Each structure stands twice: as structure tokens, then as C-alpha cells.
């Protein structure tokens, strides 16, 4: 029960950003929503199913380019984003079907290689994507700055609400049960009738849909994308760290983790620009060594208690 309350508080809190009229704060909030979508999505395959995917950036870039290209063809934003989601679902299902037979490190690298491969393809398919020169996405000139900022904030926020809803439904449903069985003992799960290939692939496909849609919103938001931006390794790693902060395996944890990370990153970046990546690195190291079960386990750790996974 309490996780729904936390989620409600988070969503309401974020929605208050436009009320301040501060476009900078809104930008931060939009980014927080975007990363929250990515972290919660990663949690489906990495946390619930136990397959450590490093492919988040592949879906993000795929969505950004799919939606961006459609936008240059005068397709309306909601449609281009929806199409990006569908494309990502299909592509992820196909990739997943092939790669999910790998486990652990091999799976991680294979998904990482997909990011690299897609980036190179985007770089080379100049006619379609603009290649290394990037893709310009038309903006709606009628909108003022504040209106535009609000539009994209609510687009991301709405996407976050949708993602959270779907992820929580998965957690509670038969699908979530199956994923938990697969994560804990895949062989035993198969022997009691779990079609693990089906469920894994579904989880992987779902983990790609909302990330791609977030990429689509991002592309229209920033008006210009390059392969290196949207197929960036950091886009794949940050959601993982965010899920770790919130406690791997929890949708709400991933969302909270994303917000904590974005807020912390902003503070560090403002005050210690030269050392920002180093400080983030230090935090990640500290997290892994001392709080691998997320901030939620802090109170247990401080009292010297054991943390059950």
C-alpha cells in the first residue's frame, strides 16, 4: 500500500513544477520524468526478470529517431510517439527472442553491442537520419516558451504515469509472478510450466516501449538529435544506477531513485562542475559497496541488520 502513496506523492509533486512558472525547474522536472520512465522500464527486465540489460539507450535512440523522422514528415506528435512505441516493441521482441538465451555478462554485453550497432547505423544512414550531421526536428513556432515547456513537461509526466501504471500492473499480475520465478530459478520455473522465453521476451519488449516513447518526446523537445546524443552509453547506465538507488526490483524505487539522482546530479554539476563525473562515480562506488539494496535499506544497514533481498 505505501508504495502507491509514495508514487502518488511523487507524481503530484512533479506536477507542481509548472505552477512555479520557472522554466528551468520545469526542465529539470521533465528530465526527471524522462529518466524515471527509463529506470522503471529497465527494472522490468533488469530488476524483475534478473537479466541485466544495457540496451536502454538503444530503445531511446530508436524512439528518438523514429519519432523525429516522422515529425519531419509533418506527423503529429502523439502519433509519432505512439508509432515509436510500437516499433520499439516489435524490435525489442525480435532482439529479445535472440538475445535472451544469453545470461549474465553475455546478455549485458550483447545488449550494449546493440546500442553501439544502432548508433553506427544511425551514423551511416545519412539519407534517413541525417547521419553525423544530426536531425533537425521542426518546432511549433506558435507556442511561447512557457507553453512549449509545459507541453513537453506534461507529455513526459503523462508518459511516466502510464509507465508506472503498466509496471505496477505487471508486478502484481501473473506476468510479474512468472518473471519473479524466472529470476530466482529459471530451470525450476520452466519445470512448473512457465514459458520463460515468452515472459522474458514480453518483459524485454515492454522495457523498450516507454523508453522509446520518451526518446520520441525528447527528440521533439530538443529539436535536434545526433547519433552520439541519443545512443549514449550514459543513457544506458544511469537508469541502472537509479534503479540501484531505489532498490532493484521495485518500480516505485526506480522512480524515486531517478528523482534522487537527477536532483543530486544537478547540485553536484552546479557546484563542482569539473569533478561532477568523478563525484558521481564515487557515489556509484559507495552505493554498490555499502547499499547494494538501495537507499531503502539504509535504515537496516545503519542498525547493523542483515538485509534480505
Amino acid at each position, binding site marked *: 500500500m505505501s508504495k502507491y502513496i509514495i508514487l502518488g506523492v511523487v507524481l503530484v509533486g512533479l506536477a507542481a513544477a509548472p505552477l512555479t512558472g520557472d522554466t528551468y525547474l520545469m526542465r529539470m522536472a521533465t528530465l526527471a520524468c524522462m529518466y524515471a520512465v527509463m529506470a522503471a522500464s529497465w527494472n522490468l527486465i533488469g530488476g524483475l526478470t534478473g537479466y541485466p540489460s544495457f540496451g536502454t539507450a538503444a530503445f531511446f535512440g530508436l524512439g528518438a529517431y523514429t519519432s523525429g523522422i516522422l515529425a519531419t514528415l509533418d506527423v503529429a506528435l502523439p502519433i509519432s510517439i505512439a508509432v515509436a512505441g510500437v516499433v520499439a516493441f516489435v524490435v525489442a521482441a525480435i532482439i529479445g527472442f535472440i*538475445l535472451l538465451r544469453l545470461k*549474465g555478462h553475455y546478455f*549485458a*554485453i*550483447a545488449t550494449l553491442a546493440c546500442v553501439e550497432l544502432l548508433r553506427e547505423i544511425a551514423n551511416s544512414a545519412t539519407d534517413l537520419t541525417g547521419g553525423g550531421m544530426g536531425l533537425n526536428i521542426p518546432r511549433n513556432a506558435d507556442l511561447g516558451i512557457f507553453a512549449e515547456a509545459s507541453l513537453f513537461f506534461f507529455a513526459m509526466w503523462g508518459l511516466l504515469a502510464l509507465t508506472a501504471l503498466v509496471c505496477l500492473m505487471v508486478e502484481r499480475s501473473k506476468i510479474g509472478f512468472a518473471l519473479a520465478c524466472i529470476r530466482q530459478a529459471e530451470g525450476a520455473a520452466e519445470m512448473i510450466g512457465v514459458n520463460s522465453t515468452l515472459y522474458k521476451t514480453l518483459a524485454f519488449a515492454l522495457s523498450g516501449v516507454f523508453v522509446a516513447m520518451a526518446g520520441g518526446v525528447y527528440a521533439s523537445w530538443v529539436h535536434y538529435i545526433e547519433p552520439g546524443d541519443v545512443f549514449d*552509453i550514459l543513457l544506458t*547506465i544511469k537508469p541502472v544506477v537509479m534503479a540501484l538507488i531505489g532498490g532493484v526490483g521495485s518500480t516505485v524505487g526506480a522512480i524515486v531513485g531517478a528523482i534522487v539522482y537527477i536532483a543530486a546530479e544537478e547540485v553536484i554539476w552546479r557546484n563542482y562542475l569539473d569533478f561532477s563525473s568523478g563525484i558521481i562515480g564515487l557515489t556509484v*562506488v559507495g552505493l554498490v*559497496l555499502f547499499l547494494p539494496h538501495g537507499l531503502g535499506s539504509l535504515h537496516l544497514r545503519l542498525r547493523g541488520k542483515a538485509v534480505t533481498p
Partner: protein
Amino acid sequence: MIFVQILVNGLVLGSLYACIAAGFSLVWGVLNVINLMHGSFIVLGAYLALGLYLSIGLAPWWSLAVAAVLFFGIGYLIQRFLINRVIAAPVLLSLTLTFGLDLIIQNAMLYFFKADYRSLKLDPALGSLAFGSVVVPVDRLIAMIFALLLTLALYIVLRKSRVGRAIVAVRVDQGAARLLGVNIPSIYAIAFGIGTAMAASAGTLLALTFPIAPVASYAFLGKAFVVCVLGGLGSVPGAVLGGLLLGLVETFGAYALGPEFAVMLSFGLLILFLVVRPQGILGRWGFE
């Protein structure tokens, strides 16, 4: 005759790739840890070579020895006190840990060395050697020879020395090794130290061939991945085979399709092998 030139280029490049990957493969195969700092250690080795050459005129192949000793120690300490704490945890944690550590190293490199590319130009320049119509720059040739010697040295250490054989034993069957009295954490630290030493040493050689900047570490890391998957984990012959194969594929691919496809080709090959033959050409199916 251009075929032979490309072949030679591919083999030279491949030898360097083999050297880059050998240490990475060892750590992955023995500890089941993917060391995301590997690329950064290569770059640090290159900076060390550059620094020693500019300050005291020490040629890169001699600073190799300095790099090896220094970075063995660094790697040993990192494994003993940091990585060892997550060695039994899910792979996600060791991946994230080495990633975090790499961020710190990257930041430090950017701060101290700045982001611009540097190269090590030997003065007096060594020129090139010609064998018929095939031309090979002398510095690359020397780098290749030392790379192969270094890789051979690793192979000999693993086969002949007591420590080396303990490392191989741990890789093959940890439980049995422990029963025979092998101190596993100590072996892990030594193996990791060797991996780091190999990386930095490879870096000193690479300084002659590739431009150095902090960001170059990702490219080297990527190569190391591909070589390991192609050749098989934890085996030096595997790294050599994988490295040579990658070098040849890239040079022939660049010639046939254009240089921008070389990177795509290497990642496509990676995925292909992961799906079809994850254990690589030589390696037996290692850890998951």
C-alpha cells in the same frame, strides 16, 4: 599486391588488439568480472609512456616495464579492497562498480591531462621498412613485436609459474582449487593486477600508433570485448586468435566497405558470435 599490404596491416593491428584484450580476458575468465576500467588503464599507460618520453626521453618499449610494475600494484589493491567485496554478488553489481570507478578515473584524466588528443612522435622518427611493395612503419612493427612478446610472456607465466597455474586452476574449477589450498582472494587480486598491468603495458605500446585522449578508452574497451567474445574467455591463445581475426576483419572491411563500416562490422561480429557461439572460437563455455 595490395592484398598483402592489407594483410600485413591487419596482422599488425591484430597483434595490438590481442595484447589489449589478453588482460581483459584473463580477468573476465578467472574472476567473472568485466573490468570497465580496462580501457582507461590502457590510456593511462599511454600517458605514462608519453610523460616519460617527454621528460626523460625513455622510449615507450622501456616504459612498458615501469607501467607493468606500477599498474600491477594498482590493480592488485583495487581488486583486494574494492572489487573483492562484490565478487560473489550478481554481475550487475561488479559491472556498476567498475563503471563507477572508471568515471572517477576518467574525471581525473580529463582534469589532469585535458581532453585534447596527443600523440607520441619519436624524435628522431624511425621511418618505415619496405618488404617488396609492402610498407610497414618501424614504430608500429616494434609495437607489434613487443605486443606479441608481452602476450607470450603472459602465456608462459600462466603455464609455467606456480602462481600462473593456480590462476588457471581457479578459472577451470574454483571449488577444486580451493580444496587444494589455493587462496582464492589472493589469486583474484593477482590475476586482476596482471590484467591491469597488461592493459597499461599495451597502452605504452599503443601510444605510438593511436592518438591518446581520455575518451579513447571506450574505443579500446570495445575492442577488448569483441576480441574476448571472438576468441574465448580466459585463454591467451583465444585473445591472440580473436585479436588477429578482428584486426584482419577491420582492415579488409575498411578497404572493401569504407572505414566507417569497420566499427559496425566489429559490433555486428560481436553480436553474431554471442548468439551463435558465445564461447568463442577456442574458449570453452565459461561463466554465464
